[in-house]
């Protein structure tokens, strides 16, 4: 007799992007978890994590925003699932900083007018899939293997950083994305720019920087023979997808490289209908590639 499979259930913090520019990340996350039978319950009344701007301007504000979210999450059962790399990093950093700093903790408690609670494990979707759910079970759930699809896994800056915070994977040479997408049959390429910065917020103030940095990421992925990029961060997605045409104009090189959220590809593999994965909101149209590989 095989032991009964544990029913997994999580509280869920989508973050601002997943309700706006990265809707397809949210939709595909929900679709994927439903297909895998993993419970996902959104934290009511959550607020912005502060992202990059808050902690650059006011550390107390940044810590307080996350602490408030963590205390709201206490009301929902299950470890806290986070999709966005920036939200994930900020929540983890807050837990780490407040755990051993009594003074800051008191300030934050005053600011949010409530107790700081740091006990709830904050987990990125990758961690949930690779460790809690398990790669073997993920492989079992596959209905449409992504075989033949060459994926360049792009981590960006925040998924494994800062290094002093308990890490998702090795800071400088992680493999968790490759392991997860490899479990549903995709082929991953070895490439050099997995951890490079995409230019992030400079997309508004100095787009030239983004064109250069994101351009070299696309260039390197193409040189490695990738069909597409896979990301876990809405800001990276914006720079690599929305700005791709501008980059092509600036460099004179044609990439035509679709940029997927990890959950879009995973959901597709476990049989979620392509129409529910937000492919139509991507700027670089992924459908020709997916058709070519027989995936839609």
């Amino acid at each position, binding site marked *: 007799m095989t032991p009964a499979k544990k029913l997994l259930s999580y509280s869920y913090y989508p973050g601002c992007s997943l309700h706006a520019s990265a809707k397809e990340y949210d939709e595909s996350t929900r679709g994927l978890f439903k297909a895998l039978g993993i419970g996902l319950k959104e934290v009511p009344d959550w607020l912005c994590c502060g992202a990059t701007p808050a902690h650059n301007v006011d550390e107390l504000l940044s810590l307080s925003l996350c602490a408030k979210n963590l205390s709201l999450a206490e009301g929902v059962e299950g470890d806290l699932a986070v999709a966005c790399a920036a939200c994930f990093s900020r929540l983890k950093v807050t837990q780490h900083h407040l755990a051993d700093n009594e003074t800051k903790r008191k300030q934050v408690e005053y600011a949010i007018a409530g107790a700081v609670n740091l006990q709830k494990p904050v987990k990125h979707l990758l961690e949930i899939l690779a460790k809690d759910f398990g790669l073997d079970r993920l492989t079992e759930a596959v209905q449409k293997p992504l075989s033949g699809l060459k994926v360049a896994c792009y981590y960006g800056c925040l998924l494994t950083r800062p290094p002093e915070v308990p890490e998702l994977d090795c800071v400088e*040479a992680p493999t968790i994305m490759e392991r997860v997408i490899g479990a549903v049959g995709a082929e991953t390429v070895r490439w*050099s720019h997995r*951890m490079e910065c995409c230019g992030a917020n400079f997309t508004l103030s100095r787009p030239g920087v983004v064109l250069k940095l994101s351009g070299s990421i696309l260039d*390197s992925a193409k040189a490695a023979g990738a069909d597409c990029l896979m990301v876990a961060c809405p800001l990276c997605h914006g720079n690599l997808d929305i700005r791709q045409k501008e980059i092509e104009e600036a460099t004179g090189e044609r990439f035509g490289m679709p940029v997927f959220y990890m959950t879009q590809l995973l959901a597709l593999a476990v049989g979620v209908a392509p129409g529910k994965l937000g492919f139509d909101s991507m700027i670089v149209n992924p459908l020709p590639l997916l058709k070519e590989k027989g995936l839609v």
Partner: protein
Amino acid sequence: MSRIGVFVCHCGENIARTVDVEKVAAEAARLPGVAYATDYKYMCSDPGQNLLKNAVAEHRLDGIVVAACSPRMHEKTFRNAAKSAGLNPFLCEMANIREHCSWVHEDRDEATAKASDIVAMMVARVKKDKRLVPITVPVTKRALVIGGGIAGIQAALDIADAGHQVVLVEREPSIGGHMAQLSETFPTLDCSQCIMTPKMVDAANHPNITLHTYSEIESVDGYIGNFQITVRKKARSVIEEKCTGCGVCSAKCPQKKIPNAFDKNLGTRPAIYVPFPQAVPNTPVIDRANCTWFKTGKCGVCQKVCGPGAIDYEQEDRLIVEPVGAIVVATGFELYSITEKPKGSPIKGYGEFGHGTIPDVIDGLTFERLASASGPTGGKILRPSDGREPKQVVFVQCVGSRAREKGISYCSKICCMYTAKHTMLYKHKVHDGQAYVFFMDARTPGKSYDEFWRRAIEEEEAVYIRGMVSRLYQKGDKIVVMGSDVHVGVQVEIEADLVVLATAVQPRAGADTLAQKLGISYDSYHFYSEAHAKLKPVECATAGIYLAGACQGPKDIPDTVSQASAAAAKVMTLFAKDELEREPIVAKVNEKNCVACLYCKKVCPYGAVEEKEIRDRQGNLIRVVAYVNPGVCGGCGTCQASCPSKSVELDGYTDEQIMAMIEAL
């Protein structure tokens, strides 16, 4: 009534800054049994010692307390002074008001009160001190040297030249160590092999040196002057006495493709091999893990072709016991590797440099093999990946060193100089090539060192870029080096053909295990600790054991040779006497009370406790008691703490003395 003298030292400002020394002396003078108390700026100086000696005569003192630094620092000094004043030296005690008080406190009143308490305790102890006589032990005038690199060879030759027997133990099949692997040496660019190999031959041929290669230290027993060393001579599968070193076995061995560790795996060797042609001894060893005979039971070619019949497949490890009086530890270093480290390890690897997966990213020692005339490329600088001559070479300093976030905060000391040397060797061999160096600081203290570094820049045209490298990655057949130039304030990207990393100098793997066998201390990185950073740089805190070379800390060749000769001189000093005086702070058993439970024997870390039979005049056994061998006892007091019947006590630390000290508080 006792007549104790108390001498309170200012230690310049070290004590007087935090402790009111005059008040401590005044309070001490009021203690019962104290006949005289005073303070002085430097008690350890000549006038300070004279003050003590005169006071002994003038005030007829019968005990002394010097309130100053740690007894580890100056107990010997003041006991000698007491002795020359006609007092038994063991009636002189130190009250440590520096390390235990002034250095660790800030509040002057509290520190002064604590200093007075410490003095009062020591006065109480001195009152109950007994006159002790030093123990003498014989000295075995033979030395053990562990490690056959330049440090070990130099120490062994010096001791042997002084006329003493030396046992030299080397883990590898040949002596020579890292120096035999180097190409040219800074700052004179003389060939390393040319200056090293004659010394190797001298060591092997010296009538006073017994050489055990391919051997390791199995265990160490005994104490200064009287160590018993067990050496494990690993099975060579070749009978050393019969082998003539003709080399036919290696030439005929069908296994040819085993990576040669001596060449940093760039070249290959057979399964029966000497690590390099100039090896000493020139006796091969069979690498059993890779030998066809040992793997399948077939082959046996070497045995068939060996004229003198020196091949012995049945050979087993042998254990040899060597009695020695002193030990020189010279186990050297190894280079840090950027590969992934186990999770949780305090030392981290370099994922941003590819964790060692990029073939043309090599370390400094690999570059030495490439540049060496006896190396796998015959001295040509060629890339490991495709054998092409690199036209752009980037050298990166401080990889692993001075990088707290990677787990090592110390400077490896030799890299600035050897990297400058590498740029020169490269330029001499590839005239149209360009060398770049990323560096944090150029640290070149040493005779003719800074001139050497300047020469690399000014005459050999190496481009030095001050800044760190953030990432290395393969792009086509190039390696992209991303770094910063902090002088100009820009980011730099160089497409290099070859990258050479000056990786940190670390102690040999297993340095901690050996230290535990020897009973010597080591730091958190496993470098061996000297007894005093400035005044006892080659002695260990454990008597009779000395340090030489990079096992104690990163060192270049001149420093290593100096330290090795210094260690040898210390051994010769020890061997200059036939008998050795030991401190009589040893445990003694009260045989009347001892019930021979022998719990002391179980807890003694030195193995000093024996069973003693007490017999009557007719020779009938009356009973058994414990006996502590004073020559072996280390004076730790563990037996005293554990004895249920209070029958064993350490001289100078009796229960009565400890209780008196507590009562004085």
